[in-house]
């Protein structure tokens, strides 16, 4: 009950910011429409709607990192967290209260991306439903990265690190816009050592109905999500103690 009250407050703070809606929803939709228009004129396999949409749904999650990091860093900066630390809320309430509200927002963003894709010609299959379900562990990874950044950075630094650096990493190292094999070498090795490209390839395999193709990508995603969550929780608790 206490945690839900806190989670409810966080949902309201996120959804009431028009910039969050504009970037979180508008940006992935604009990209889908724009790249589909390019594909219509200059056919590129990467931008075919069944290939593009899973990538866009994963890329859209970088905004979830921004949302979670921003709300935590702002709460820290305004002393609201200090006030709440003196209430009966427990550390578990705080962590769940910051994490859980963003999961349905991430799922809603994914659903809207797929609705747009269907309008643009994506075939309706049950695999879309599976792709939406499997976006949940990926969203936990991105939310945990936000929790981690929000625990150590102030809101201005969050804008730079999560808003610029992470969205770019997530874009360039994920094989959404170009085939990583075209660059190859160290760039490709680094990309495959990070979780972003694995998340995209997992979602592409699910949407294509190639369920054996989700391996080993799902292990990379889950592994990174667990590491990020553990690091985020320990850093959050550390800054809580530092109060």
């Amino acid at each position, binding site marked *: 009950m206490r945690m839900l*009250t806190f989670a409810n407050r966080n949902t309201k703070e996120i959804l009431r910011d028009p910039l969050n809606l504009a970037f979180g929803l508008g940006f992935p939709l604009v990209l889908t429409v724009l790249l589909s228009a390019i594909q219509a004129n200059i056919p590129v396999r990467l931008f075919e709607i069944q290939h593009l949409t899973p990538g866009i749904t994963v890329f859209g999650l970088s905004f979830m990192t921004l949302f979670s990091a921003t709300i935590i860093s702002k709460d820290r900066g305004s002393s*609201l967290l*200090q006030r709440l*630390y003196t209430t009966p809320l427990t550390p578990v309430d705080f962590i769940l209260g910051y994490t859980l509200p963003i999961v349905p927002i991430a799922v809603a963003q994914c659903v809207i991306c797929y609705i747009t894709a269907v309008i643009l010609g994506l075939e309706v299959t049950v695999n879309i439903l599976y792709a939406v379900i499997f976006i949940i562990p990926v969203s936990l990874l991105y939310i945990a990265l936000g929790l981690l950044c929000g625990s150590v950075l102030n809101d201005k630094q969050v804008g730079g690190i999560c808003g610029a650096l992470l969205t770019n990493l997530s874009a360039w190292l994920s094989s959404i816009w170009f085939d990583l094999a075209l660059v190859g070498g160290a760039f490709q090795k680094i990309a495959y050592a990070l979780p972003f490209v694995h998340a995209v390839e997992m979602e592409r395999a699910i949407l294509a109905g190639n369920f054996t193709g989700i391996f080993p990508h799902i292990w990379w995603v889950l592994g990174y999500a667990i590491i990020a969550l553990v690091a985020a929780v320990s850093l959050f608790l550390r800054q809580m103690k530092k109060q």
Partner: protein
Amino acid sequence: MDAIRMEGLTKTYKDVVAVDNLNLSVCKGELFSLLGVNGAGKTTTIKMLSCLTQPTSGDAFLNGKSICKDTAAVKSIIAVSPQETAVAPGLSVRENLELICGVHGFTKDKRNTKITELTKWLGLEAVIKKKAGKLSGGWQRRLSIAMALISQPEILFLDEPTLGLDVLARSELWGIIHSLKGKVTIILTTHYMEEAEALSDRIAIMKDGKLLICDTPDKIKEAAGTDNFEQAFIHIVKGAAK
């Protein structure tokens, strides 16, 4: 009976002693002020008493509950209004109050009753639907105090509650704080001498983490040999430096 009893309360950060062996008692219903220049240890003392930071040594008991061993019980009887604005900016005034009611586990009926009571008493009705982030500094501070009071705390910590407010807003807040006297035990920190003198039953003056004097405003003036409280404060703090 004592609402707060500090026993050798000490906090050190590496080589710096922020609070040094503080032994103090505060009676139930008393308005007790902590005064001191910057770095005196006032905020650190409040942070320890409100379980935000652990003492390096010593302990304090709030209505008999230890801040070291029984933090959950302590948190259930206290409320803090921090120095900086501590409101949720995207929520309305009512939603901010609902948030605090919710985290304290109030029922819906109790929540509605308390919000109606408190908004009426603090004059927040006019801004109840406004977003907290859009309010002026004075209104935000008033909301901050309402958020601290709505959980019906037995002990209330007000850390620089009137800092940065204009004369009128400060005078209004003084009225609110004054009306709480006797009902709630209040620990107030402030830089304003006239505020401490006007509101407090007793005042503790601290410097470099040490307690210099603790008494009523009149007795402190008497001890310093002056009838001006600010002069008395300067005399005591400078005297300690020699």
